[in-house]
Structures are given as C-alpha cells and as structure tokens.
C-alpha cells in the first residue's frame, strides 16, 4: 500500500550526522518531505507546547534517540506521560539507538506511544513496513 503523503516526521537526536542521514533517507525513499529537527529532547517538548496545533493531525511520527545528554529518550517519554502533554497521545514514537538489548526493548515498549525500538542506522524498509501497519 501507499503511505499517506502528509506524514510529518520529528527527528529528536543530538547527533547531527544521524539527523542528516535520517532526513536524507526519508526524503530519498520518498516517505516524507515534512521533517522537523530537534537537537535535544527539551526543544522537542518546547515545540509541542508552543506549536501544539501543528501536532494535531494523526500522521505525526517521532524518531527519537535513546541516548541523549541532558534529557534521555526515556526521560522525554516520562515527560510525555504528564497531564500537560495529554493532548499529544496520538503521537507515534519510534525509539532509536545504536545498540539495543532486551532491556531497552522491554523498557521502551512499556510506553504506550512507543511503536518500536529500532537499531541505527535506520532501516527505511523496515520503518516503511511499520508505518504501513500503523496507517493501514
């Protein structure tokens, strides 16, 4: 099936190279051109609050790195559980990490908004498959 054309992606990662790579991969594989970049979790959270209307459509995908300084991916997920973010419960989050073990999988997938934990580098074909499952 074809994916919706208006999926917005939010890349949250402190690693500039990985951000650049993932942006390119999403564009080149024609998944989306609507990509928003955040170099850390607090700026992503701030953007949710500031431009909350931007996040209301159902096609909002977050790709978030687990290991980030200041606020880790897990800490950010905990923040999102707070009542003030309750209107963003439709966000679909994929957690990214350069190395994942079963504790990461267990931990991350215990959050309702987390769809999957994906290993870096991003496998776009796999991501596409998961997105198709979500938007079927």
């Amino acid at each position: 099936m074809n994916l919706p054309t208006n999926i917005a992606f939010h890349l949250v990662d402190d690693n500039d190279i990985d951000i650049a790579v993932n942006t390119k991969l999403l564009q080149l594989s024609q998944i989306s051109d609507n990509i928003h970049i955040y170099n850390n979790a607090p700026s992503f959270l701030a953007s949710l609050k500031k431009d909350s209307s931007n996040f209301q459509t159902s096609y909002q995908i977050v790709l978030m790195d687990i290991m980030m300084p200041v606020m880790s991916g897990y800490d950010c997920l905990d923040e999102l559980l707070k009542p003030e973010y309750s209107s963003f419960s439709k966000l679909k989050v994929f957690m990214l990490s350069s190395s994942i073990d079963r504790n990461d999988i267990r931990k991350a997938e215990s959050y309702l908004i987390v769809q999957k934990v994906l290993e870096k580098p991003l496998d776009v074909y796999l991501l596409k498959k998961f997105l198709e499952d979500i938007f079927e």
Partner: protein
Amino acid sequence: MTDRIRILYLDDEEQNLFSFQALFRREYEVFTTSSVQEAIGYLNREEVAIIFSDQKMPDISGVEFFESIIHQFPDPVRILITGYADMEAVIDSINRGQVYRYVTKPWDVNELKICVENALEKYYRAAEIKTKNKELEKANAELERFIYSASHDLRAPVASIQGVLQVAKMEVTDPKAIGYFEMIEKSTHSLNEFIGNIIHYYQNTRDDEMIKKIDLNELIEESIKKCQAFSHCEKIIFKTEISQSTDFVADDQRLRMVLNNIVNNAVKFRDESKNEQLVSIQVISNQDKAKFVISDNGLAITQDKLPLIFDMVDESGSNTASSGIGLYIAREALKKLNGNISVTSNIDEGSRFVFEVPNKS
C-alpha cells in the same frame, strides 16, 4: 582497645574459664562465659577470631553450639574442647560444627598456645581470601561495565558511518566513488561485527534470560538473511529442513547468538573455488530438545585446529575478516542454555556443526 585479637571461650566449668583467661589475657582480649546467651551477645558485639567451646555442657553440647551459630557467624575459627577423646563427638564436630581442631582436657599449655597461633593464621588467611575475592568481584564488575559502555560508545559512530554510506550509495552515481564506498562499507562491517560480538559476549555473561516460544522457520530465515545482507555470498545455496513435533521454547536471544555465529562461520569460510557452495541447516525438535545440524562444503578445519576453534584464539585459515570470537560466544551462550556443541570437519566434505538446546516447554 579495638584492634586486639578477640577469643571467646564457652565452658560450664568456672575453673577452666579462669585458667584460660589467665593464660591468654596478656596477649589477647579473652571473653569467657558459661552462658550461651552471653557468648552470642559477645559475638554480636565484637569481631571474634577464635571460639573455644567445651563439648560437655548441661544445656547444650559444644557441637550443637557451633552448629547453631555457623550461619550467623561463619568467620571465627572454631575449636572444640573435650574431656576425653570422644571419637564420635570429634567426627560430629567436624561435620556438623565445622570445627577446625579439638583439644583434650586437661590441656597442655604449650599445645594450646600453638593451637591458638595456628587458628589465628587460618583466620587471617580466610579473611585475606575474602578480601581478595571481594576485590576480584569488584574488578570484574568494573571491567564488565567498561566493556559495556566502551562497546556502546564504539557502536554509535559506526552506526553513523553506516547511515552515511547508505545515503551516499543512494545519491551518488559515480562508479568510482561507489567502489570506494563499498570498500569503506566492507571495513565498517568488520568493525561493526567485532563490536557486536563484544556486546553479545557481555550480554551472555549476564544472567537474565527471555524464554519464549521459538518460530524455528523465522529463526533460521533471519540468520540466513543476516549473512546475505553483508557477506556477498550470492553463490551460496542455503538448504533448510525443519522437523518439529511440539512447540520449542528457549532463550530466544542466546539461541540467535549461537545460530547466527555458526551460520556466519559457515558462510565466511565458504570455498570460493567451488561452483556449488552449500550451507545446509537442519533442525529436529521434540519435547526434550532441538538438535541443529549446520553443514557446509566450505574450507575444512584442519584436525589440529579442530579442538581449538571454540577458544578465544586465532581462527583456522583466516582469509576473510573476522574477529575470531564468534564461535567462542556461540559455545558460551550454549553453556548458559544448558546445551552442547560438537564439530567435525574434513577436506572432502567441509565442516559440520551439531548443537543441542533443551526444550523448556
């Protein structure tokens, strides 16, 4: 004075307690009592090196006393004092009370002094071993933590490089550049595999497990796919045969570690000179166990190297990049799975790995 060596002596005969005290009080801090309660109270308060106890007491025997305190106070050296050479009591004391020595009454003063000296030596040796063990455990835990964080820190930039290569190959059309990318990709893959092995080694040393029902088809397909993705092994024909009578349940991650490493090994040591390169994976699974047979017609392992291939040493006939610890990890993971592995190899037929994993259903 807190650093004096403490000796406790329990006996119902006041006279014995008195002369014992007189004999040792200059050198040691001696606590004598005829009450078990008081003795235990003292043990709770102070660190005691040696405990003497009379065997024949009205309420409790010496052996029974030792037996009753052994779990709470395992460290002090225990010495039993008996009125006569009661063989039964002595045997009993060694087995039940874990007594170090026994002394007969009336005691010989010199003998008793030597006995105390020997007991002290034993006490300090045991304490030293305990300290050393603690240090070792600490060093070991630190090393593991280091391996863990180092391999994760190494993995992050490698993943970035792999990502860049992926994009570069999609965007760049210059065949020369693509050739270079492929070279970088090959080296990056070796590095990545090595880091992956270290991470697997670390994961295997930890005790947690994730027992679940295994889809044998998926398991094997996955491990073939993993090899095909990187090894440029288009010429290899994979044959899979599964015979399964009941559900197979095992630690999923460790099983994958084992199978991936063995299949990877078979692929890595393929014989490029052969037109027909084969890797066959056969599984027979019943309610007791699953038996995996992975055979290939690749480069044989020479007989002298065969016993060494599961060790953490160099590998046989290495003509391809490899970290050489893959088979070691496979065997270590199998140990945790309570399984076993064997290998045969000859020049005409290639190698054949057989491993068994108990079914936990």
